[in-house]
């Protein structure tokens, strides 16, 4: 168990910076997610920490040790790829035994340790299968077991759930979170899925074009984004003009929608009604103004406005976040 510290880490390919002077401190046992669109440099950052790549500038510390120039082999990192990267010519057990073998751990001790890791990811009984005989979710669990069996200092996850379907992904998110907490291992996850980032992490680092946009707790980043990019990337953002000329952010959950003439909101017309199960989402056109359309998300309680309905829209000034 160790902390991670990045100091001004850059990775340039010619004129393009995949990582641009990134600073980050991950505390021991913390779960931090690097969130960004594709091409934002998040995977590059992970590969720099894993030692698969060398930064062009900056230092990387793991557990206080400067590992900037250390090869991947010497970093004691558990790394999980989106593609799982299981060894196809080995059984599940042999895959999990691999990191123990290279550390000189063999025999019954290694076997016990590997089977324990498989039990932890709920794969006991499948140890003699080949990876090709497993489902995607099971393969991901094997990859996870293989990356924690040797008690790594830190755990790096590169879009670990990206290749799975939605239901399985949500199940595995819960499992991953529990596993991480029970092991207490410092974890850095990379994803482009903002829901995943919000639900899993202690803190989120939002990355765009290789630059840090914000590092904050999920709720903080969602409600008080550091800039417009973060506001839009983390979810649906309603931007409203403020009196002082600045732009304010109102999240759809904070928008009230009611019948006209009751609560004195601004008149609007429903453009689209989208049912999301427990929520209903309205796309609204405000009347008599140049303002952009507003999106509202309300709990669905059996009755909803239909497209074309005239409604009144309002929000509390306390729910407006002036975007810096």
């Amino acid at each position, binding site marked *: 168990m160790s902390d991670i510290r990045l100091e001004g880490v850059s990775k340039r390919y010619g004129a393009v910076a995949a990582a641009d002077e990134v600073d980050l401190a991950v505390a021991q046992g913390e779960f931090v997610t690097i969130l960004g669109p594709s091409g934002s440099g998040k995977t590059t950052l992970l590969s720099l920490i894993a030692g*698969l790549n060398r930064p062009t500038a900056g230092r990387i510390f793991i557990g206080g040790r400067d590992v900037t120039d250390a090869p991947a*082999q010497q970093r004691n990192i558990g*790394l999980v790829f989106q593609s799982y*990267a299981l060894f196809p*010519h080995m059984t599940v057990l042999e895959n999990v035994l691999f*990191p123990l073998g*290279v*550390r000189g751990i063999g025999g019954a001790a290694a076997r016990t340790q590997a089977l324990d890791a498989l039990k932890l990811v709920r794969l006991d009984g499948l140890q003699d299968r080949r990876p090709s005989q497993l489902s995607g979710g099971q393969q991901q669990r094997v990859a996870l077991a293989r*990356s924690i069996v*040797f008690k790594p200092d830190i755990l790096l996850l590169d879009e670990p759930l990206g290749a799975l379907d939605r239901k399985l992904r949500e199940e595995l998110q819960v499992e991953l979170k529990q596993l991480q907490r029970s092991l207490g291992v410092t974890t850095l996850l990379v994803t482009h899925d903002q829901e995943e980032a919000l639900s899993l992490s202690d803190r989120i680092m939002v990355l765009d074009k290789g630059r840090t946009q914000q590092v904050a707790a999920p709720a903080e980043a969602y409600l008080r984004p550091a800039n417009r990019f973060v506001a839009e990337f983390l979810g649906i953002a309603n931007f409203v003009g403020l009196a002082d000329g600045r732009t304010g952010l109102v999240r759809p959950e904070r928008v009230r929608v009611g019948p006209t003439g009751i609560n004195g909101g601004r008149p609007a017309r429903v453009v689209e009604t989208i049912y999301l199960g427990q929520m209903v989402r309205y796309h609204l056109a405000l009347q008599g103004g140049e303002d952009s359309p507003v999106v509202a998300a309300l709990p669905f309680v059996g009755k909803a406005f239909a497209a074309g309905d005239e409604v009144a829209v309002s929000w509390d000034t306390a729910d407006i976040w002036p975007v810096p």
Partner: protein
Amino acid sequence: MNRSTGFAFIAPLLVLMVVAFNLPIIYMLGLAFWDKGRGFTLEHYEGLLEAPVYLRVLGNTLRISLIATIANVAIGYPLAHWMRGLGRRARLIAIALVVLPFWVSILVRTYAWIVVLGNGGLVNRSLQWLGLTDAPVQFLYNELGVTIGMANVLLPFLVLPLFAAMIRIDDRLLQAAASLGAPPRTIFWKVYFPLTLPALAAGTLLVFILCLGFYVTPAVLGGGRVPMISNLLDTLINQIPRWEQASAISTILLIVALVIFAGYRRLDRKASA
């Protein structure tokens, strides 16, 4: 279209195959079991066992084939591995250079070796100029020359399937192994090599089978002094002529090749699985 009309369409081709290819082979193989006077006989096979020259040539063929195959692996594996690491354009050029000999007649390629390996050839003149030898080294008209020639001609048969298997290996597997703590040597022997093994084995057997039936290269580079089975068959058919004996030898060669081919098929299926 049902099965029977489909059969009608291929019937002419089938007849051609049977009449033009299969019957002559069966007739050829049958010759060894037939004697004009006495009917069925195994005498020609007994003749093979009694005359040590035949077994010696067979052993010779197997040995030269084995050496040429090993030389092929020793050159081909590192070559294919090196090609995997090249950039896109360099890789294309490398593949072209490996395949290029395919487009040149085998006869031309074999005679080219005479120019390269002869007493006044490129290699010998270089060796003498460097002062490594006083007299020219005998490369030609011995087993060394035959082995070099065969290894060259057959190299693409090993390199291409091996290269195909190697570029299929996901770099992330190797990165995963490194992140799990494996030093480069372990990554090679525990991950990379096992993943290329089926293709290597299949390619090796393919090269070996092709070596067994090689004719042109041993004839030219061996100068008649390195008898291999195909050259012996040539003698038995065109010069002596003793077709029955040739037939018996062909049968044995065919069986050896088929047994190895069965092994090749099993490995190839495993490699593509």
